[in-house]
């Protein structure tokens, strides 16, 4: 479904991704793990069109999207949950969800999708008219996921969902991600919390200083000595 081919990305003079290739099959849940600063967020941003690669290709459903501007990618079926949540703090919960459905013209459909998100996260329904900035980190993370679901995406890109959350919220978020995947949404997770990320994944990649150093099924990775030492705490 998503194919990243030999991707190079630089910020100014500094190259941060040195020829990355990652592929995600239809209905798969793939996790990319790696330490802070490895280039995980850059990789996701490049897929979303927020960072321009210096070379390489991004194929989505076989179509080359490398040079399509970010705002035209929204309607293609990729939902994005950014690092640090980045909900629109000055908009209400409901307005945030409306922004997630910006590409939709049909008001009834938008209302239906908002109800669907409230069904997944009842908390958001209770806070519909509240400004997003006044909510807790966990609630904001739910909103960020909800916003990404507003266009009924085929695929979700999820960047550091566990960052800055209480352990109980981290578990809730991973459960929701797993459930969405079971319902047929393809998911690519980028995560420092390797333990959780590999537990729910079908396959995994390890990204270190801009290179993919390992890729395998999630099960094998959990058993792998070096992965255990470096990322799973022994």
């Amino acid at each position, binding site marked *: 479904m998503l194919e990243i081919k030999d991707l190079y990305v630089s910020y*100014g003079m500094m190259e941060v991704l040195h020829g990355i290739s990652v592929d995600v099959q239809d209905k798969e849940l793939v996790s990319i793990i790696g330490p802070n600063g490895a280039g995980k967020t850059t990789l996701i941003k490049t897929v979303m069109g927020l960072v321009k690669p210096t070379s390489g290709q991004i194929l989505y459903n076989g179509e080359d999207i490398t040079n399509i501007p970010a705002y035209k990618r929204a309607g293609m079926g990729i939902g994005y949950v950014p690092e640090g949540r980045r909900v*629109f*703090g*000055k908009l209400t919960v409901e307005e945030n969800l409306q922004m997630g459905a910006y*590409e939709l013209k049909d008001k009834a459909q938008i209302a239906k999708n908002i109800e669907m998100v409230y069904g997944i996260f009842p908390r958001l329904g209770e806070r519909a008219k509240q400004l997003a900035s006044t909510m807790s980190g966990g609630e904001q993370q739910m909103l960020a996921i909800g916003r990404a679901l507003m266009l009924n995406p085929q695929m979700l890109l999820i960047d550091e969902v566990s960052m800055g959350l209480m352990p109980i919220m981290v578990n809730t978020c991973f459960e929701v991600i797993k459930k969405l995947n079971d319902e047929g949404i393809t998911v690519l997770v980028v995560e420092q919390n390797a333990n959780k990320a590999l537990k729910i994944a079908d396959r995994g990649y390890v990204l270190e200083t801009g290179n993919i150093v390992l890729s395998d099924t999630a099960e094998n990775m959990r058993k792998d000595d070096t992965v255990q030492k470096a990322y799973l705490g022994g």
Partner: protein
Amino acid sequence: MFTQQLMNALAIGSVYALTAMGATLIYGILGILDIANAGAYLIGAYLGWYIYYATGSIVLAFVLSMVAVGVLGILIQKFIYSPILAKPNTLSIIPLVAAVGLFTMSSDLVRLICGPYSLSYNFDFGVTSIRIGSVVLVPAWILIFALTAVLLLILWFILNKTKLGLAWRATANDTEIAKVCGVNTSNAMALSYILGYGFAAAAGIMVGILYNSITPALGEVPSYKMLAIIVLGGLGNPLGTVLAGLIIGFTEVFLSAYTSIPIPKDAIAFVVLIIMLLVKPEGLLGQKNKV
């Protein structure tokens, strides 16, 4: 006397709010202080003058001048600010310097084309004054107040009740994520410019009507007073700007009418600003932490 001062303060406050609104909308979405807005105000006033004396219509003077200056705003955004901001790691001083340059250029262009003298701005309203009981109302005040109210209501409606406005607010909040949601953010920026420069043009004409004359130096005082107003309002907050404009207008009118403080009228805005910043540094309606 008091009612007279009140109407005068409302008219001046309205003009201030409208003048600063352009800079507010632009700061809100691009994060730059566009001093050149005061140039839009100047050019708007002159265009309004020429259109009025060519057609005899106050309505046409407002509409055509606002549209022309709004289009000028879009051109300035597309060809000057966007290329500057597109460069990686642009220091925020660079667009500011460009804005100062644009403003200076607009003042000098007006001076070269229209002459360095003042033009008399005698718009004919049909009546010179309206008397209600003991209160005498100047038609210009009513026009200014009513027109500002209409323009600000239109702005409020666009920002809060339309999809375009939602996209604008989202873009002002987080441009990158708005883009990912499918907003063509350069259109949201263009909206800021067409409204912002159009409003500034209307404010320019209003000031011409209010003081009966315009000169090429018309934009100088607003170019810095505008800053006091948008900072007072909480940088980039449209409602705060309206409040701040009215507060400054009222303070100026009432302080000079009822007290004999020795500071010049145009300095009052800054005294208010300094007091405000000491008490509430984030401005009237600013948020402490940007989310």
